[in-house]
């Protein structure tokens, strides 16, 4: 039992260990410089990421409270990788910050919460993980301590997140009321599709929709993304959203499978709304972070298209897309983080003439944006293509057509940024040549490599597909 505990929950244990190490550093008497601290943390995160690949095993713990499998381990590895990249690209910002240890303790706590959420085999455990991931996140949204915007964003985030938790709890209580159990594996036979259960399902989905920022539950996204520090925004848009998508897919595909007919139409409607609203609002944004906020809403709509297919391909393509999205979005946010920390500029028009002064960063950003737009040979093309094929499996070609048309709209605003960087000249002063530190550079190179390689090499997708057969 003990051995199994250490084996199955090893990723959670590793994270907990890192958190404790950081806490000891904080209470210890030795004064650490930020640079040394960041070196240590990044090394630990790298070890943590590599450690995740050892000993792939599946099983359940604590009466199915906690379960793990190859897919779950993979999802946690993806999140680990994303967190490591976020930490690397945040170097310039964190170096000047006064509370680095607290930042990482909070950040890793949310990650731990997401791990428990992904591994949950029981609705109660799931809720616990969700809260553990939500509350520290609100604290780090507020981490630009001198900026009012940041506090405002944190306030919005905590209120909307509490509201969505409330909805989820309400839904969970109804599930318990009608079935008498909260265990995932016992639920499906008991779900008969009665009116109360359908209502519970709608509430559960609304709760998830908040976390993934699906229209019409997206209203918090833009403000929070704009107000938070860049790397927290990156973390929110990639890790937090990714974890929510992983859980959403597995809950829909396993627990709510008996109600597939009912949730299909909801997912269909939500995906159409999300794609259209996200893309149309993104067209008019001038703040780069806000633009990416709306674009990430639109991307969530694409993920829903794939999920609506309710097939192994649907699950695999959603997980694969998140992996691709990690690289693409963090590539984009990496450049934004560097520019924001060193030049203090966040508007998309500030990037005019960017290629002349910073060719490397401009290429990274362009490639990341192409990947987000779904342009080959970037991996985003494959990600979107597979999502749409998975979605078309049901024969719903209207959805596919709408999605394909949305890709044109999204191309417009991504290309606009590319145009600013490569074609336009800045009238006043373009962003000066920025020194890129080794850590962010490594992160950006990893992102580029991921964007180029993931699509052309089919093995990654095939592996995800092989482990996601239900």
């Amino acid at each position, binding site marked *: 039992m003990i051995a199994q505990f250490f084996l199955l929950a090893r990723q959670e244990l590793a994270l907990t260990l890192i958190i404790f190490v950081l806490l000891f550093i904080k209470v210890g008497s030795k004064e650490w410089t930020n640079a040394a601290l960041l070196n240590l943390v990044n090394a630990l995160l790298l070890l943590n990421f590599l450690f995740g690949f050892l000993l792939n095993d599946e099983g359940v713990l604590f009466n199915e409270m906690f379960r793990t499998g190859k897919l779950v381990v993979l999802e946690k590895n993806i999140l680990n990788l994303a967190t490591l990249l976020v930490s690397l690209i945040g170097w310039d910002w964190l170096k000047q910050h006064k509370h680095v240890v607290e930042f990482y303790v909070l950040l890793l706590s949310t990650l731990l919460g997401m791990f428990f959420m992904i591994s949950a085999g029981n609705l109660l455990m799931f809720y616990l993980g969700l809260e553990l991931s939500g509350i520290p996140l609100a604290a780090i949204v507020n981490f630009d301590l001198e900026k009012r915007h940041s506090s405002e964003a944190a306030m919005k985030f905590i209120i909307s997140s509490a509201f969505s938790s409330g909805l989820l709890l309400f839904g969970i209580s109804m599930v318990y009321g009608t079935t008498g159990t909260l265990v995932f594996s016992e639920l499906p036979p008991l779900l008969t599709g009665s009116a109360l259960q359908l209502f519970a399902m709608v509430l559960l989905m609304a709760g998830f929709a908040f976390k993934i920022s699906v229209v019409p539950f997206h209203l918090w996204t833009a403000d929070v993304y704009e107000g938070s520090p860049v790397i927290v925004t990156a973390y929110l848009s990639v890790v937090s959203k990714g974890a929510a998508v992983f859980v959403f897919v597995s809950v829909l595909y396993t627990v709510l499978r008996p109600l597939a007919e009912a949730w299909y139409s909801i997912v269909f409607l939500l995906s159409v709304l999300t794609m259209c609203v996200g893309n149309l609002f993104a067209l008019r944004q001038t703040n780069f972070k806000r633009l990416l906020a709306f674009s990430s809403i639109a991307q969530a709509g694409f993920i829903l298209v794939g999920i609506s297919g309710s097939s192994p391909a649907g699950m695999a393509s959603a997980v694969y897309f998140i992996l691709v999205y990690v690289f693409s979005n963090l590539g984009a946010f990496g450049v934004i983080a560097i520019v924001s920390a060193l030049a203090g500029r966040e508007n998309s028009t500030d990037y005019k003439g960017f290629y002349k002064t910073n060719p490397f960063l401009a290429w990274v950003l362009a490639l990341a944006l192409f990947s987000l737009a779904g342009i080959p040979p970037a991996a985003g093309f494959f990600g979107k*293509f597979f999502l749409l094929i998975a979605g078309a499996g049901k024969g719903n070609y209207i959805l*596919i057509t709408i999605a394909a048309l949305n890709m044109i709209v999204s191309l417009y605003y991504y*290309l606009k940024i590319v*145009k600013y960087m490569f074609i336009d000249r800045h009238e006043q002063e373009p962003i000066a040549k920025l020194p890129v530190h080794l850590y962010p550079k490594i992160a950006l190179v990893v992102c580029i490599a991921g964007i180029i390689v993931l699509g052309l090499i089919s093995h990654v997708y095939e592996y995800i597909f092989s482990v996601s057969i239900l």
Partner: protein
Amino acid sequence: MVAFAGAAVQLLLALFLLLAYWQQRSSGNMAAMLFQEDYTWYYSFNIHYHIGVDGIAVSMILLTAFVVLAGVLVSWDTDNMSKEFFFLLLFLSAGAYGFFISLDVFMLFFFLELAVIPKFLLIGIWGSGKKEYSAMKLALMLMAGSALVFTGLVGLYFNTTVTNAAHSFDILQIAKMDIPLKVQLLFFPFVFIGFGIFGALFPFHTWVPDGHSAAPTAASMFLAGISMKLGGYGCLRVATYLMPDAAHVYAPYIIALATIAIIYGAFATMMQKDLKYINAYSSVSHCGFVLLGIGMLTKTSITGAVMQMVSHGLMTALFFAAIGMLYSRTHTRMLDKLGGLLKIMPFISSVFVLAGLCSLGLPGLSGFVAEMTVFMGAWQNPDGLYRLATILACASIVVTAVYILRAVAQTVMGPVTDSHYNNLSDAKWNERLAAFLLLLGIVAIGVAPFWLNRLVTPAAEIIIQQLGRAVN
């Protein structure tokens, strides 16, 4: 220099491919596609890396090689970000080659989209005039085209069945299946209009004039010479070949749109004052012949359509090259500002005149051969409406002659309109070589069309068999 070497190697390889292809064919290998390679790419979606060529693809590859080499040559003096320029140009050519050799529609689509963004950057960075507007318009319209293609292809994919895998993207496999008529009727318009946007199908041609006129010379050559051929090739290989029943049903509409494009393009050209716009609108008209040939669905007309693609590709590239050379010296492309250049720049002016003559279909040059073949193929259709379309298309040649002769006369004949022109120099070696290469192709097709004909006809025959199978 590296780009030049690369492009030259491309041409050599293309010629080598042509020879190897002939050797195979003459030794009696009558398979539909030669030099096939097939590897599984994405197992779970049954996506393959499957390549192979037939006569049509070989001729397209040759065309691409010629135009790319000429394009690299004429932009020899690019000094603003030249590395990026040639990188994008060669990237574009990689997309085109990949497109022509794909036998898997996923791959085909991949390469189709691959070729969109380099065009955006080429026009946006090195273009002139309303370059940002044009670049954006082009990228979005072509993306819309590929979105339609995508929907059509996915729809087709889910209606295929193969043993041991659920569905197939493979062109040769899909061609052997009987796709239900209802499915074909639903998805044919998606695919055809999608590729049609690339191939300047009326009324989706509006990106053509803006895109071509704003693009730098090499990009214009590439756009008109190769990129528009992606559309024609896609209409033929994917839409018509894979959905033959629907092709029969929709043929009258295709012909109607193609005829409108031919006549509208010709008349619109008459109104233009800018040399690049003249050539761009005339491209709309000429590409109408390609679609007309495809729509007529006879062996001769399809052969003619392919020949027209090759011929138009070479001719329009030459035209744009000549315009680019003139523009880089006189700094104007307006008809009323130019004049008397024949005396000052005999070489460039002669090239310009030859391109014009090819465009209006002078016998001995490729334009005549290709258009003649299309007309002959079209006339094989006894139906009255088809005859009418053919006659109208023939009549457009008169209009073509009017605008071409007017443009040529205005530009190279007459008195010298600006005394500055007297100091201008004639073509340099790289420009001469580029023009020579393209002229070589044009004359080779014009004087001895049989080699191209022999190359294309067997492939066209296979498409016709497929169409015939549908009727039975």
